[in-house]
């Protein structure tokens, strides 16, 4: 019964989203306040309906209602509660329901937190959100209905894939979708501004918090996925340049570019057309990612043929939204004329360079991702594009961005002198170079990767510190006064410095890990010790055990250094009987400068076991850097200038009847 109500709520939400598309749009065009207000009511109603629908599906999973096809396919009574809940989005249909739930949630947030927006703009934003929602409701209802029943309910379900039964993975998709779908807000603001025919500084300020929020979620989502891959894969890889990974990375790069260019629109009324284009493309890449992932067209041309209906549907939505937005963009090119004037060397041009590097690096990832398809379709060549290509083609962009970033943040707006901007950085540049030399001297293997990474990472981090310090005033004002002022700097300044240093930390982590990783594969006998990278590893015991819904083989491995015990690790091999699927659970001793990572393999003769041991230097810095980046984003988001307009509303209430803008 509950399930049918959930289905009905979803159909109602579809109808409401259609209303939400049309009514506020007409209202905004004609200046009818009530029609515009109807958009807000529709957005809230739509959210409540989808929320109910999602709750109904969750209820079916939690109570293991095996009359629902999706629950049968993805759940089991013995599964721990956390994974019963995360099983809701651990499949195509349920994850699409989460997708529209988040979409409706963002729409409702625009109503709840969008008090500072002019009524017309808000009405149009909601209309565009409604249009996106309508497309995806139709997609779910016509091709991927999660509420389908089975005629003969089985006694128990097929269980969720064991690899998905992991805390990191339980929260990975929601964060990723918050990011993907959050970019729809930037898209809606861009389309609304184009319909309205006005892009100004205020628009730049309004669109930025939404983009920032989406980018923060996307950063966390990607970091969670990468971290999961690190500990679950069994050999500690953290990034694979896989099409599905690239699908999440491309919108991230474009969103990062958009964050920076929106500042130029806000502060200097320049780069308008480009910023609008980025806002459209950021969501466009989200949709492309959805298409790549759902249709399977990139990973295998044949998978597309297996389920053409879904792939074609998403392709049509992609063509509709992107085609519509870009046509509108072309038609309105005349309203996006820049105002601000700035010199060749200035903060503006530094941000233009930032945007070029981010956008082109995204283009490189895009070309590499679709190339196998292009080569097969047009050149009849069946080839692969893997990590070696991406590492080589993408790294130069990271190096250029890291090199230029500290200089760019110190350039003043409008007009600057390079020599003057470089002056406070000179000493720190030398320090970063000294760190590079030190790393070069210290390492035993002469690879350039670690020293270059050490230089770039410390240069970016030191540069972020200098950036913050320069904001406090000049040398004449005394260090004590400047220190005091440091804490009172706007949160946006702190956010920028924190996010940039997070980027530097990730560079350090990636380059040190890739340069200095140690690996040891051997047959170890019980009680026998061996040495890996200065650590003495002893296989103490191996025993069999039983988990809630799996059986396992649990090894006990002692790690010691210089005779002192460091850690006892328990790597596992699990077998999930329902899906007859084994998994490897690596055991990791996390450290500030290194992880000791052990995996137990198959039994061998004479009580021997295959043991893989890895020393992973600075591994945690990779994800710590990502988390610090998103913290920086959060600081920037909490800056008071995004909240100032709320109290200002009192004053403007009578001015609501402002006549329509240029159209």
């Amino acid at each position, binding site marked *: 019964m509950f399930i049918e109500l959930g289905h009905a709520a979803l159909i109602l939400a579809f109808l409401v989203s259609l209303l939400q598309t049309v009514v506020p749009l007409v209202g905004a065009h004609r200046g009818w306040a009530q029609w515009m207000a109807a958009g807000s009511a529709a957005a809230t109603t739509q959210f409540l309906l989808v929320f109910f629908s999602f709750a109904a599906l969750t209820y079916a999973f939690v109570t293991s209602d095996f009359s629902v096809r999706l629950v049968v396919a993805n759940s089991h009574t013995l599964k721990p509660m956390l994974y019963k809940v995360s099983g809701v989005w*651990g*499949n*195509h249909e349920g994850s699409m329901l989460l997708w529209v739930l988040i979409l409706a949630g963002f729409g409702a947030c625009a109503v709840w937190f969008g008090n500072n927006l002019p009524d017309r703009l808000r009405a149009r934003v909601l209309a565009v959100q409604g249009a996106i929602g309508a497309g995806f409701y139709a997609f779910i209802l016509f091709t991927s209905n999660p509420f389908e029943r089975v005629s003969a309910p089985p006694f128990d379900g097929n269980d969720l*894939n064991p*690899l*998905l039964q992991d805390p990191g993975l339980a929260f990975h998709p929601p964060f990723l979708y918050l990011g993907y779908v959050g970019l729809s807000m930037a898209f809606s603001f861009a389309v609304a501004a184009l319909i309205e025919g*006005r892009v*100004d500084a*205020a628009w730049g*300020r309004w669109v930025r918090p939404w983009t920032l929020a989406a980018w923060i979620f996307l950063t966390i989502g990607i970091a969670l996925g990468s971290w999961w891959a690190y500990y679950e894969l*069994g*050999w500690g890889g953290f990034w694979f340049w*896989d*099409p*599905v990974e690239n699908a999440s990375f491309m919108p991230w790069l474009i969103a990062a570019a958009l964050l920076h260019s929106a500042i130029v629109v806000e502060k200097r009324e*320049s780069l308008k057309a480009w910023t609008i284009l980025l806002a459209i493309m950021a969501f466009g890449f989200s949709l492309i990612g959805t298409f790549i*992932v759902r249709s*399977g067209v990139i990973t295998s041309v044949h998978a597309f043929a*297996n389920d053409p209906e879904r792939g074609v549907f998403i392709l049509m939505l992609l063509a509709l939204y992107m085609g519509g937005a870009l046509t509108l963009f072309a038609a309105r090119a*005349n309203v996006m004329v*820049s*105002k601000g*004037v700035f*010199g*060749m060397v200035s903060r*503006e*041009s530094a941000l233009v360079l930032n945007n*070029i*590097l981010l956008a*082109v690096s995204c*283009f490189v990832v895009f*070309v590499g991702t679709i190339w196998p398809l292009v*080569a097969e379709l047009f*050149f009849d*060549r*069946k*080839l*692969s*594009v893997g*990590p*070696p*290509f991406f590492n*080589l*083609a993408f790294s130069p962009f990271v190096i250029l961005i890291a090199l230029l970033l500290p200089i760019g943040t110190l350039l003043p707006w409008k007009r600057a002198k390079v020599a003057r901007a470089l002056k406070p950085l000179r000493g720190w540049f030398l320090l970063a170079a000294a760190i590079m030399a030190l790393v070069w001297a210290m390492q035993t293997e002469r690879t350039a990767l670690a020293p270059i990474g050490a230089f770039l990472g410390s240069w970016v981090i030191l540069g972020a510190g200098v950036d913050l310090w320069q904001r406090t005033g000049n040398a004449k004002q005394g260090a004590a006064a400047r220190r005091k002022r440091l804490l009172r700097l706007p949160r946006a300044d702190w956010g920028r410095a924190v996010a940039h240093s997070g980027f530097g930390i990730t560079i350090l982590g990636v380059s040190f890990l890739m340069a200095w990783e140690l690996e040891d*594969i051997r047959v170890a006998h019980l009680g026998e010790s061996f040495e890996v990278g200065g650590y003495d590893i002893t296989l103490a015991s191996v025993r069999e055990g039983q988990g809630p819904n799996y059986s396992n083989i649990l090894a006990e491995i002692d790690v010691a250094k210089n005779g002192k015990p460091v850690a006892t690790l328990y790597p596992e091999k699990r077998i999930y009987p329902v899906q007859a*699927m*084994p*998994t*490897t659970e690596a055991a990791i001793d996390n450290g500030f400068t290194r992880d000791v990572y052990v*995996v137990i393999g198959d039994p*061998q003769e004479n009580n021997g076991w*295959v043991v893989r041991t890895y020393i992973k230097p600075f591994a945690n810095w990779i994800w710590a850097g990502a988390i610090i980046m998103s913290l920086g984003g959060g600081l920037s988001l909490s800056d*008071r200038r995004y909240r100032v307009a709320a109290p*200002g509303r009192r004053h*403007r209430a009578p*001015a609501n009847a*402002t*006549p329509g*803008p*240029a159209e």
Partner: protein
Amino acid sequence: MKYLLTLFALVLGLGLAAPTATLAVEPDEILADPALEERARELSKDLRCLVCRNENIDESNADLARDLRIFLRERLTAGDSDDEAIEAIVSRYGEYVLLNPKVTGSSLMLWLAGPVALICALGIGFTYVRGRSGRDGKATETQQKPLSDEEQARLDEILKS
């Protein structure tokens, strides 16, 4: 890698054969000569496991990947250079096996796409910035309809912080 792909395949309802728990290079495959083994490891990272979705043979646990690893080691032990060993595998399985696509023919476009796009973008960016830095201030003129007093007042209020 197979795990990751399985995960995504499952999330997406694509369905994929379940992986096994044994992993990658087994102790019995490792060559006695560390230098030779090191070369084999490096080369395997650039070779695709053909029955997997997007995995190199060094990480893969598929039987075919194991056969390829052993074949590669045999070639290296027999005295092949890196290129000769790779060529021997490509001649059997086609260029699909190369994770690092060759810089020949139509794939030249793939390799040049990034540098060419960067040069074009820098050119466009340079032209734009030069236009903005308008010596005579021409760029300040806008074809945009100026804001009404009311709109300007509202804008000032919003931008005041």
